[in-house]
């Protein structure tokens, strides 16, 4: 390197072939080009989300009012869970860059150690996302709509094989969020519930209790597409991990494969940084 650092190469020689004008290998350059195209896909999705979000200003749900739960706890913890997910992904990105750095020093043990942590971080993130999806789909006790378009929120959840009359303390909240909000209880609430047109609880592809149907669709598609990237990233990391264990890269003389998968893994983290801001915060 020392000799190259001072050596001036004529541009025409450089572009005429023989060596990469970008001073990177073919594989790494193609990984970058793939990431650019993938970034365009994600940007397209996020811009589409922003479009819907902006067009429905007022009716669109706010992240911190939808995502406020922590596993095993019943209180109100806005954004804490998703912040935790973000932190897990950032840390796994750090362990990945440490694996790449160890690779540059041809430090086998370091690569193995940091890559293992990266894979564990990836699994943690996937598990967190599975919980969040299940929570989003299941939702709160939900609301009912009436023939005259009135909307009542349930205070208690009705278990699958029960009816409203079986639920102790069953109640309905009328005009939720406005100044004439009131709670209806007992037999009156049950009779209103019996006359309902529809009971909306949680989310699916056609309707959700949080806001316009597109909100649920964007949630499933954007976080799902990102989760799919995380999943494939974990699979690729495991493959590379096995190769490192087998000593493939030591024999090859360089650890560039670790660096290339590292690029992909950092990209997944990068996308999440944007999803976090635009889906959850704004």
């Amino acid at each position, binding site marked *: *390197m020392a000799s190259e650092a001072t050596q001036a190469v004529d541009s025409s020689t450089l572009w005429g072939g023989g060596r990469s004008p970008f001073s990177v290998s073919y594989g790494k350059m193609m990984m970058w080009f793939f990431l650019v195209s993938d970034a365009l896909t994600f940007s397209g999705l996020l811009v589409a989300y922003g479009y819907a979000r902006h067009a429905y200003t007022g009716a669109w749900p706010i992240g911190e009012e939808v995502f406020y739960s922590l596993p095993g706890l019943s209180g109100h913890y806005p954004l804490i869970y998703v912040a935790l997910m973000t932190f897990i992904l950032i840390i796994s990105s750090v362990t990945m860059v440490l694996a790449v750095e160890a690779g540059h020093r041809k430090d086998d043990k370091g690569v193995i150690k940091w890559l293992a942590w990266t894979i564990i971080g990836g699994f943690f993130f996937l598990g967190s996302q599975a919980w969040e999806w299940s929570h989003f789909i299941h939702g709160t006790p939900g609301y009912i709509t009436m023939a005259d378009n009135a909307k009542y929120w349930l205070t208690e959840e009705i278990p699958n094989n029960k009816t409203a009359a079986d639920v102790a303390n069953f109640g309905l909240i009328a005009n939720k969020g406005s100044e004439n909000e009131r709670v209806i209880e007992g037999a009156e609430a049950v009779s209103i519930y019996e006359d309902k047109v529809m009971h909306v609880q949680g989310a699916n592809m056609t309707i959700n209790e949080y806001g316009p149907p597109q909100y649920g669709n964007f949630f499933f598609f954007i976080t799902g597409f990102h989760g799919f990237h995380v999943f494939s990233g974990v699979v690729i990391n495991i493959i590379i991990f096995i190769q490192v264990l087998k000593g493939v890269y030591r024999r090859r003389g360089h650890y560039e494969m670790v660096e290339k998968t590292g690029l992909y893994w950092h990209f997944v983290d990068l996308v999440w940084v944007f999803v976090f801001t635009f889906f959850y915060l704004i």
Partner: protein
Amino acid sequence: MERDDLIVNDSYALNNTHSEEQGVEIRKKIIKVTVLLSVITAIEVALGIFIKQGTTLWPVVKWSFIVMTLIKAFYIVAVFMHLGDERKSLRYVIILPYALFILYLLFIGITESNHINEIWLQYKP
């Protein structure tokens, strides 16, 4: 113009191996960036929890979210993906076409959704 044909930083080329001292330097930088990313995320979450949408402070907070996100993105790309250490030609080949497309798409998205929003407010039931 700065000459781009000098191989000033070839440290990620295949034939290169880092020494232990270089490794120490790089790790220091990684730790610094980690702390920065964590602190920015913590600030974002705190702002998100304490400042509600629709308050007078909200527009400032919203824009600070976007700025903080871009700062985080810059450090992830420049340091973790070490694009900052690549040659200038590669940096531009990656960043410029992307930026061009996305700024254009953002412009279209914002203009159109503004218009749709106006109509929606006008005719909503």
